[in-house]
């Protein structure tokens, strides 16, 4: 009952926050320097033609009227057409989102599993060589500059060794080949995914490792661990069944939020690896003042982050019976 009340209260909060985000996004893009038309015009376009274009995009209306249209369209589920693609932004996002989810969600899940696993080991060997190497390794990979690492990965594994494609998500050699079936095409995607996935994995697993390690170290000091030892339980059971589940709570929060943020992809990763995800579209839409596309993309991120925050909180209560709302 308490939980239900909590969820309702949070949903109301989310609605209010979302409305604020809706308004801030509108203002932010309109107040940002530049305008969509200046990107589209060339010296051969007369001011009159530019004016037609401005009016066509609905930018000749006063700002408050544009805002009212924006709110009306939002509540009617109309997000408008991209200025540059000429297509509904929902279609563009729907086209790009699965690619982003495929890469980033996979990388976060993989990083989390490996990070938690290695974090457990590091904490168990606190102060030893294993712990030192793992901590140093995690810090080093976690703090490396992502585009640099991505380019190095491409240069070594794609360019020099030729093991993987340089960039992209699919290869035209496979997808244009009428003999290639679904298996070949799936393998092709996996083949292209290997390098960006490895890069993201290297960047992210360290943070999970470090969170898990420090959380485990705290947990291992708890009385119930001492009790478990006193009961004569094996070290493996104490570590995996008593310490790890309690220590994993901060990792759950971190993974939950990372999963939510993963839908915005990563502009840098997607750009360097030419991964056709939402991150590249975000960069394009913001730099080209494509308001409908930028607004819809950010709204999607806002919704997912707000909802996943709620999910993480509820999940916390489920994982830790001591937590009650």
């Amino acid at each position: 009952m308490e939980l239900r009340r909590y969820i309702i209260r949070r949903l109301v909060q989310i609605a209010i926050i979302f409305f604020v985000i809706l308004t801030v996004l509108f203002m932010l893009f309109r107040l940002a320097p530049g305008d969509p038309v200046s990107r589209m015009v060339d010296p051969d376009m007369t001011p009159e033609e530019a004016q037609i274009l401005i009016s066509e995009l609905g930018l000749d209306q006063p700002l408050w009227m544009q805002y009212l249209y924006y709110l009306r369209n939002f509540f009617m589920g109309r997000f408008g057409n991209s200025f540059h693609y000429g297509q509904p932004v929902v279609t563009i996002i729907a086209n790009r989102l699965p690619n982003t989810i495929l890469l980033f969600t996979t990388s976060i899940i993989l990083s989390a599993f490996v990070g938690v696993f290695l974090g457990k080991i590091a904490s168990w060997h606190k102060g030893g060589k294993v712990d030192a190497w793992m901590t140093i390794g995690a810090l080093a990979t976690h703090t490396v500059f992502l585009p640099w690492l991505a380019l190095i990965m491409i240069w070594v594994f794609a360019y020099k060794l030729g093991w993987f494609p340089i960039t992209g998500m699919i290869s035209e050699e496979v997808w244009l080949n009428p003999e290639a079936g679904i298996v070949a095409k799936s393998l092709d995607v996996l083949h292209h995914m290997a390098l960006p996935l490895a890069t993201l994995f290297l960047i992210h697993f360290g943070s999970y490792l470090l969170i898990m390690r420090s959380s485990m170290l705290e947990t291992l000091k708890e009385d119930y661990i001492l009790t478990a030892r006193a009961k004569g339980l094996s070290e493996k059971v104490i570590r995996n069944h008593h310490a790890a589940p309690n220590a994993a709570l901060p990792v759950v929060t971190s993974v939950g939020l990372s999963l939510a943020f993963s839908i915005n992809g990563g502009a840098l990763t997607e750009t360097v690896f030419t991964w056709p995800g939402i991150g590249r579209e975000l960069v394009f839409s913001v730099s080209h003042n494509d308001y409908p596309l930028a607004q819809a993309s950010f709204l999607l991120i806002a919704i997912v982050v707000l909802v996943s925050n709620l999910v993480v909180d509820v999940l916390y209560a489920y994982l830790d019976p001591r937590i009650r709302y």
Partner: protein
Amino acid sequence: MNLTHNVKTHVLTARVLILGLLAVMFLIPWRHAYGADMVKVGLLQEPKTLNIWLASDRWSRKVLGQIYQPLYIRDPKTLKFIPWLAQEHPVYDEATLSYTVKIRPAKWSDGSDLTSEDVAFTGRLIKEFRVPRYASKWKFIKKIETPDRHTVRFYLKTPKAIFLTRTLTTPIVQKREWTEVIEAAKKTEKPLHALLNHKMDRPVSSGPFVLKDWKQGAYLFLQKNRYFFGQDKTIDNRKLGPHIGGIIFKIFGTSDAAIMALKKGGIDMFWWAIQPGYLEDLRKHENIRVFYNEKSALYYMGFNVRRPPFNDVNLRRAIATLIDKDFILKRILQGYGIKMYSIVPPGNHFWYCPNLPRYGEGLPKEARIRRAYEILRKTGYTWQVPPIDTEGKIVKAKDIRLPDGRPMKRFTILTPPADYDPNRAMCGMIIQEWLRAMGMPAFSKPMAFGSLIQQVKTRRDFDAFILGYGNLSLDPDYLRNFFHSRNDKPKGWNMSGYKNPEFDRIADLSAGTMDRDKRRALIWQMQKIIMNDVPYIPLYNPKLVEAVRSDRFTGWVEMLGGIGNIWSFCRLRPR
């Protein structure tokens, strides 16, 4: 013990998985190259749309240029117009102010005939919908007639020079393909909006290629159009193909990745200007050929001549004298560019006026300062510390004063930021230093491109700026757009606010002069006036450096604007 065992098991599993994945990658049979006769072209961004009326980005236009064709195109060497979809040059009838164009026998990619009706339809569509980017090239057309299937006649309201260079180079669309679209659009509240937002999945082509497949975010495949009118024909003394199976446009997020793919053989051409930093490495590669061509581009410094201090032509001339274009070319562009002395790029041979003032040309730094000092001193400028002391030595000047005795206020030179264009940002910095040496309180200010345009074009609140046009039209009518007083308005192209009734008169005259030679005389006069009044100081025109694989295809055609042109794609052959 258990722990060590666990770790070993996991490591082993991971090794097996990785090895298995690698084995699959290398052993699966689908890695055979598909389409050995396809030219693979690297692009830095994906084309946004195949709707020709919406396409404003260069990437879409590169693709659409292989699909929709105009009546006339330019010869790659002489840049003269030659009939393309047209059979011959247009015939002018002065009495009726009309041009008659014969259409050559040609087909659309769906096998239907391309007729005069398609041409007339295209023009009427543009006029009726007032399609931005095309409407101004058609608004002076009074009437379009189609006396027969292969003849189209255009009646002009008034003589317009751009009719030949811009109207007749409009890409022609198929009437059958667009009729339904425009009928549906007309029934909507916003017809133009409906037209621009029409999703064009399979454009019907009259060009050498037709769309076969588009995997968004990955590649776009244009297949050879078997109905292409130029196939195996000789046009403009060039035997046309296409001799290739198609073009595959591949998207790369960065130049680094595209260049690696080029070196590796993943693409045959990178359709983008290559920065000098890559060249040494590319030149060493035995299977890569580098092309150096001129662009129809202009990079310049502009002044706000509406207000002091730059409303004084003498100050502008003095600044033009102080700017060392050789330095900019050698140090900033690393030699990959040419100096500009006119608003018209020199590569545009016919319209470029060679006899223009060249302020400070070839002078060393000290001589420039002396000359600029003379110009300013004679016109009433004074200094607290002049740049030349009583003994005639060059010293650092201090606090220049305007002819009316007021000190010159601090002014800014707006430039795009270095991450957008390092060359222009660096030019701003170096020009700032040259002007400070004369005691001018100049400050170079890099600014986000959008803000810069807003400041200069919309708000018109600025002192000076450095901007550029990377792809100027080959018709010099832009001179009129840039400097006619009529265009000195918010969002108008006359950003400097230049006003000269004599220039306006000649510009208007040139716009209505159909005779090429007479028009050239007027265009030259316009260039002379501008370079005399220097509302803009042309700085440089960067060389267009492009690279291709030389081991798979041959036949690239060089022209102003590079090798990425329809001639190349019609003449490329597998080696």
